[in-house]
């Protein structure tokens, strides 16, 4: 089980959280120069590394805070907590 660092409550068990999916990639500021392929890539292709991913968790059975963490997909080590 992960121990997810909640900025409000401190490290808590994963069972208190709901997974919120990969952290959204920055939406391009100006869409007009994008071709279809780049836009489809933005919409459908998430990073899928054997290594760190950025993802959101919701402390739904706790304080309700949303947390973004960087977690290794192979070791499950939480590398960085970046807050909301």
């Amino acid at each position, binding site marked *: *089980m992960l121990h997810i660092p909640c900025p409000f409550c401190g490290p808590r068990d*994963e069972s208190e959280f709901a*997974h919120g999916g990969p952290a959204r990639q920055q939406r391009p500021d100006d869409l007009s120069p994008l071709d279809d392929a780049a836009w489809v*890539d933005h919409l*459908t*292709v998430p990073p*899928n590394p*054997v290594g760190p991913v950025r993802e959101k968790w919701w402390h739904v059975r706790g304080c309700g805070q949303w947390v973004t963490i960087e977690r290794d997909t192979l070791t*499950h080590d939480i590398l960085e907590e970046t807050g909301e």
Partner: protein
Amino acid sequence: MQRYSLFSLARNALSDHQNWQQAWRSPPLRDTYDVLVIGAGGHGLATAYYLAKNHGITNVAVLEKGWLGGGNVARNTVTIRSNYLRDESIPFFVKSVSLFEGLTKELNYNLMYSRRSMVDVVQTWGRLRELKRRMLNMDIHGSTYEQLDVEELRRRIPALTGGGPESRLPILGGMVHPDAAVCRHDAVAWGYARGADARGVELHQKTEVKALLRNVDGSIAGVETNRGTVRAGKVAVAVSGHTTSLTETVGLRLPLKSFNLAAFVSEPVKPLIDVIVNCPDIGVYLSQSDKGELVIGGAPDPGQSFRRDIKQNVFENAVSAMLELFPAFRRLKLMRQWGGALEIAHDGSPIVSRTDIPGLFVSAGWWGGFKAIPAGGYTLAHLVANNQPHKLIEAFSLDRFRHLDFVLESGTTTAR
């Protein structure tokens, strides 16, 4: 190929079983082939088999990082079924189930194929509506789904004693899919391996593909392995869970995320359940193996993962969900647990497709891919041989993402 039969068994018994041929050869790795298949799992081996059998392409090497049949084909819950939702999906899985039915005879290898119904235990009205919608679509495409009332459901599964009117989610009814089956997973890999080898395909274990290689014109040139460079004009990737790691070595990004899906088995007990029980509302499914063990699967670990173990809380969730419906199982000891990295595409449907790189083909996104092995191999072999998709997989090409023309699928595994 040495045929297995009662006669060959008797003849070999006379020589104390010392003279059986090896099931497949271990030839030296050459530096050029017509086709390379990466991954000696179910899909890779089936593809090699059908390339040789249906298309006469035998200058083929299957490259495997570990050992043959040691990946997700060894790490699943052996459920074969075709109760999917979409017009594009159902015919594909109907074909796969029908290929499975004749496979023991075709491969001359006992798959211990056992047809048994799959019964869904329905506990929410939304789920019932979704399954009835599937039933109507399955009727059109030659698969079968029937509704059961609670009484009939409990008659078919006597161990189902939970889910009464006082429970958190009372059982509303059930659905039965009579085409479903289970079989021995290792035998699928070994049977296809032996059949492919007999037709001239080379199987190379402990041959890890480190990177894909391209020609100057952009087309596929071959692969870089831990045993040197191997060249081929066509390369098919069938490495469930790790597709993106491989395709990104040639800059090909795919709409896939890898997850850990896990399962576990109980101690063996007397025959107790003769169907596959699926409980989609609480996210657990189970069947009883020939050895008597209950084979139990749950929902995936929600975050992306490349691990092959099982997380304690995911495991506990599945067990506590199961005990709501099967309180008597509280007394069972659990024996083994395992997980595998598998991947799901953006829309939940598989990808069997050409890519932007000429000569490179991918078979990926098999969320619950065991049941798809025969049809997946059959259609990928067709695609590799003809460079044109078989009609069963036209909808599963990468082009669908280009046009945002998704095939949203809800029938992939339990809890989805």
